[in-house]
């Protein structure tokens, strides 16, 4: 008896749909804020934390690699990366771009050093750490999807609740502050959402491709709409559909890495959108 969709595919599909939706949703605001590069830096800065989290969970004797500890480590080191970026921009003459590039390369490089160093630690299963770099949908378990699903829903809910403030903050930070919402708080909110999306995306598309989930659907949606709320919903839709189709394709065809397929699909959608709206003479 073969079912239409196997259990593992169904699981991966649910996780991908929910994650794709929330990453597109949050990504719209990241895009408008012009913080896409920052999100890439953040994603690369997770690597040292992942490895350290792995070491911590191993030496605390936790079962295999406790996912939550790894993701916590990833979050902490990415957060630290954000702090360093802000420090560099505020305290030195180096610009924002330089700070982002510096943190991205240094943190990621340090992570690779740690990853290589972990080889000599006599514990098994560190090969699993590399799954977080490019994602691994095949190994999705129920507990993974539950976490990814819940967190995705929470992120989208936060976007819905804060949509006005985020819009006002991005468009005119002074107005937002005068309305009683301090700039640094709104900036922190957006960074936090980006961070959370990055963390849960590590398992599905990996840290290298997470930035694509936050950027491409948003850029595509921007071509089709003229309002922030509709843009964010469309972006969420694009992200979700691409993620879902990507998973289905990787289940139907052998030897396809799901994360990469998803990104390629999103890119195709973007390409088509550019062509169509250009031909249409879009006045968006």
């Amino acid at each position, binding site marked *: 008896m*073969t079912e239409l969709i*196997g*259990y*593992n*595919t169904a*699981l*991966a599909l649910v996780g991908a749909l929910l994650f794709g939706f929330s990453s597109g949703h949050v990504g719209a605001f990241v895009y408008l804020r012009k913080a896409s590069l920052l999100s890439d830096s953040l994603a690369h800065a997770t690597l040292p934390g992942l490895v350290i989290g792995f070491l911590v969970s191993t030496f605390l004797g936790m079962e*295999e*690699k406790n996912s939550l500890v790894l993701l916590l480590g990833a979050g902490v080191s990415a957060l630290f990366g954000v702090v360093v970026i802000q420090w560099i921009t505020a305290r030195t003459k180096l610009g924002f771009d330089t700070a982002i590039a510096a943190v991205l390369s240094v943190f990621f490089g340090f992570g690779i050093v740690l*990853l*290589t160093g972990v*080889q*000599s630690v*006599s*514990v*098994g*299963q*560190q*090969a*699993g750490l*590399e*799954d977080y770099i*490019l*994602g*691994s*949908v*095949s*190994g*999705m*378990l*129920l507990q993974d999807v539950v976490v990814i699903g819940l967190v995705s829903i929470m992120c989208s809910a936060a976007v819905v609740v804060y949509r006005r403030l985020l819009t006002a903050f991005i468009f005119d930070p002074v107005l937002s502050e005068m309305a009683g919402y301090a700039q640094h708080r709104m900036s922190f909110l957006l960074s936090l959402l980006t961070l959370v999306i990055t963390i849960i995306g590590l398992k599905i598309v990996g840290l290298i491709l997470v930035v694509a989930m936050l950027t491409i659907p948003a850029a595509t949606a921007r071509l089709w709409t003229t309002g922030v709320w509709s843009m964010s919903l469309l972006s969420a839709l694009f992200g979700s559909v691409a993620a879902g189709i990507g*998973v289905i394709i*990787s*289940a*139907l*065809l*052998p*030897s*396809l*890495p*799901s994360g990469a397929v998803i990104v390629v699909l999103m890119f195709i959608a973007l390409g088509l959108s550019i062509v169509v709206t250009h031909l249409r003479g879009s006045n968006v």
Partner: protein
Amino acid sequence: MNINRRRFMGLSTAAIAAPHIALAGQSLNIVCTVGMLADTAKQIAPSNVTIRALMGPGTDPHAFRQTRGDVVALTKSDLIIRHGLYLEAQMEDLFAKLGKRKTILSAGEAVPDQHLLPYDDASAQYDPHVWMDPALWTHVADAIAAELSSKLLKNSAEIAENHARFVANLIRLKDYGHDILASVPKQERVLLTAHDAFRYFGSAYDFDVMGVKGISTTSEAGLYRIEELVDLIIERQIKAVFVESSQSDRNIRALIEGTAARDHDLKLGGQLFSDAMGPAGTYEGTYVGMMDHNLTTIARALGVDAPTRGMNDKLNV
């Protein structure tokens, strides 16, 4: 591990002069890539030889990244023993360079071609996991013994004795495997592991072997593969799957969940040592112990009442 230039030059000179020094009966410094080779060399070599493996327990040789320290160790050594057959594919360039001034023994390539299994239908390469068949590993032991004898003429007698003892153990291992697995019926002779490292085991003991990932671990398994295996597990009513010490267990756990959703109780048969041995200093951290552990674990998972502490009653349980 700092090494300044002067010391490096001194040691390089020493390395070139090593064969002459060795003939004089002084110690030999051997660096191996994988642990199985290091242990085999250790069993065969006389006591005045230092042997070290670059890759320890739990390290995946397909994904191993050599550090500068590793390169220095290789350069300092008197003899390099690598597996070859592209097990250490990412180190090919390094060994090509080192081979110009150092002795490198590609021990795995001592196995005659007719016993080697092809990598896949397309390429001309071979599956490198030959240590899974003790009978084939005999050839490796022979090659190592020959190399050691040529470098340590004074210790030839001792080397020959060690070699004979080791080969005898290999034969015992092979027989032990046959004995305990004899009672497993044909349709249950299936071994499903994290990656395709056990083909030589399969041909040695008449098992169908499958890995979630292929022979090399570097690419993602893919959802398609997982679904394919779930169908296969249900179809053939496979009872147990195995995780490996040097691989992530996520794919295996995904298989267990996937088959459970179809009401099939797939058990985790245990952890096998595929590309790396057990913890250093333990019985499982030796070649014989590693193979003993694998055979015993597989047999017991398939319902055979094999001795819990294995062939030599030394397994840690």
